[in-house]
C-alpha cells in the first residue's frame, strides 16, 4: 500500500469530487493542484478560471502565482480582471470554487485577514481577502481545503473574511447569496460537511489510518461526527503517480 503526504491525500480526495465539464475558480497552491490533477486524470474537460483573467487555462506545469504566463498562453481566452469578477464569478458561471484559510469555524466562516480580536492591532496580519469573499458567495458550491490544525479549527473566527454557512439555515439566502457555500471541507484527516439541520460542520469521513479522536484533538470545538462515518478510499498508486508527475513538472 502506498504512503502519502498530508497535501497529497487532500489533493487526491478533492480531485475525485470534480466531475468532468465543471467550471472551477482556481487559486494558487493546492486548489490549482487539485483542479489540474482532475484535468489530467478523469476530468479532461474541466474548465479552469484563474482570477488574473485566464478562462479555460490548461497549464502543463503548476503556476507559482495566479497570473503566470503559463496560464495566459494555454487559456481559451484571457480577459480583464473586472470581467472575471463581474461577468464570470458574480454572473454565476462558476460551479466550484476553492478556498483555504488561517481559521475556519464550525459554520464554515473563513478568516484570511487578521489573527487576534482587534483588527486594528492584530497579532498576525494575514494577506487578506483576495477573491475569497466573492468566491464564497457566488460559486454554486465551495470546497475548502486546508490542513487540520488546532489553531485553525476554531469555534468562532476572529474576522469573517468569507461568509460560510450559518449560523441560521437561511443565512446565505437572506444575504442574497447565489451559491451553496463551503459544503465540503477537505483536510489531511478527513472530510467535513454541514449538518443539514443547522449547518454545523460535521465529520463525515476520515482518511485511512486516522482516528476520530485525532480529528477532535485538532479541532477547538466539540466536533460532531456523522453516524454513518465513512473511511475515504486510500489514494491509488495511479492517483499518486499522476499527482507526483504534475508536481515534478512544476
Amino acid at each position: 500500500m502506498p504512503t502519502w503526504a498530508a497535501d497529497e491525500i487532500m489533493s487526491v480526495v478533492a480531485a475525485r469530487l470534480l466531475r468532468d465539464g465543471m467550471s472551477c475558480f482556481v487559486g494558487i497552491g493546492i486548489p490549482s493542484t487539485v483542479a489540474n490533477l482532475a484535468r489530467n486524470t478523469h476530468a479532461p474537460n474541466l474548465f479552469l478560471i484563474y482570477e488574473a483573467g485566464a478562462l479555460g487555462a490548461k497549464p502543463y506545469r503548476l503556476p507559482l502565482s495566479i497570473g503566470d504566463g503559463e496560464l495566459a498562453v494555454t487559456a481559451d481566452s484571457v480577459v480583464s480582471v473586472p470581467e472575471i469578477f463581474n461577468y464570470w464569478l458574480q454572473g454565476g458561471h462558476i460551479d466550484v470554487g476553492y478556498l483555504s484559510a488561517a481559521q475556519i469555524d464550525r459554520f464554515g466562516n473563513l478568516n484570511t485577514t487578521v489573527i487576534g480580536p482587534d483588527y486594528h492591532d492584530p497579532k498576525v496580519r494575514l494577506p487578506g481577502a483576495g477573491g475569497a469573499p466573492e468566491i464564497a458567495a457566488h460559486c454554486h458550491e465551495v470546497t475548502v481545503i486546508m490542513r487540520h490544525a488546532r489553531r485553525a479549527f476554531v469555534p468562532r473566527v476572529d474576522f469573517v473574511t468569507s461568509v460560510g454557512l450559518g449560523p441560521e439555515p437561511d443565512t446565505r439566502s437572506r444575504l442574497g447569496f447565489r451559491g451553496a457555500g463551503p459544503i465540503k471541507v477537505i483536510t489531511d484527516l478527513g472530510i467535513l460537511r454541514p449538518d443539514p439541520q443547522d449547518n454545523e460542520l460535521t465529520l463525515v469521513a476520515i482518511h485511512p489510518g486516522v482516528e476520530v479522536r485525532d480529528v477532535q484533538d485538532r479541532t477547538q470545538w466539540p466536533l460532531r461526527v456523522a453516524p454513518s462515518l465513512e473511511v475515504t478510499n486510500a489514494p491509488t498508486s495511479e492517483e499518486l503517480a499522476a499527482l507526483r508527475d504534475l508536481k515534478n513538472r512544476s
Partner: protein
Amino acid sequence: MAEHLGLSEAISRYVQDGDTVALEGFTHLIPFAAGHEIIRQQKRDLTVSRMTPDLIYDQLIGAGCVRKLLFSWGGNPGVGSLYRFRDAVENGWPVPLELEEHSHAGLTNRYVAGASGMPFTVMKGYLGNSLGEIASHVRFLDCPFTGETVAAVRALNPDTGILHAQRADRAGNVQLWGISGVFREVAMASGRVIVTVEEVVDVLDRRPGDFVMPSMAVTAVCEVPQGARPSYVQDYYERDNDLYRKWPEMSRDRDTFLAWLDESVMGA
C-alpha cells in the same frame, strides 16, 4: 497625447508627496522600475493602491514612502508573507501604515467606477462579512427595482496611474498582451498615466490577444527595458520565481532589507 519621457523625469513630474498612486499589473507587467524610481526620489506620504501589493509595495513600504495602502491581497503569492508590509502594520516600522482593505472584486470595481466617471458603482459583496463592517469605502443600498441589498463601492481615481506594457510607438500608443488585469481601468481612472514599456517601436504590428491603449489616454511613456523584473513580461522575459522565493529571507530582517535597498535600488 502621450509624451515620451525619461523615467526619472516622469516620476519627478507626475508623482508628488501625498499623492494617491496606483502601480498595477496582476503578476504580469508589474512596474518595478517605476516603483524603484519612486524610492530613489524619496517620495513620502503616498497613498498607494494595488490589488496584490506584491514585492513592489513591500519595498515601497519598507523604504518609508507609503502612508496608506489600499489593497485586496497582501502576500507573496505561492510563497508566504510580505514582511515589510507586516512590520509596518504590526509595528509601525519605518512609519505607521494605514490600511484600506478590500476584496479583489471590491477594489476592481472601485477602479471600474473611477474609469466610468461615476462616484460609485454597485456589486454583490461585503454583505455579512467583517470587511463590510470596517470599510469606509463601502455602503449598502437597496435595489430600487427588487429591494435586494447590494454594496455600493466608492470610485477610486488615483492622481497617477503607473503601468507597464510590452511596447509603445512614437505617437505614444501603448500595446500590451497577455494578462492585462486592471490596466484599462487604472489608465482611464487616473488623472495622469505613466506607462513604462519594454521598447518603443515605429509600428505596433498587431498580435493575437493584444490591446492598444491610445496615446490619447496616456500622459507619459518611458522606455524602460526590463522594467517589470522580477515580475514577467509575456514574450520578453519570465518571472524570476527564485527571487520571489528568496524575498522572505531578503526582507524579514530590517537591516538585511535596508542593505538590499541601498545596494539594489538606491545605488542603481
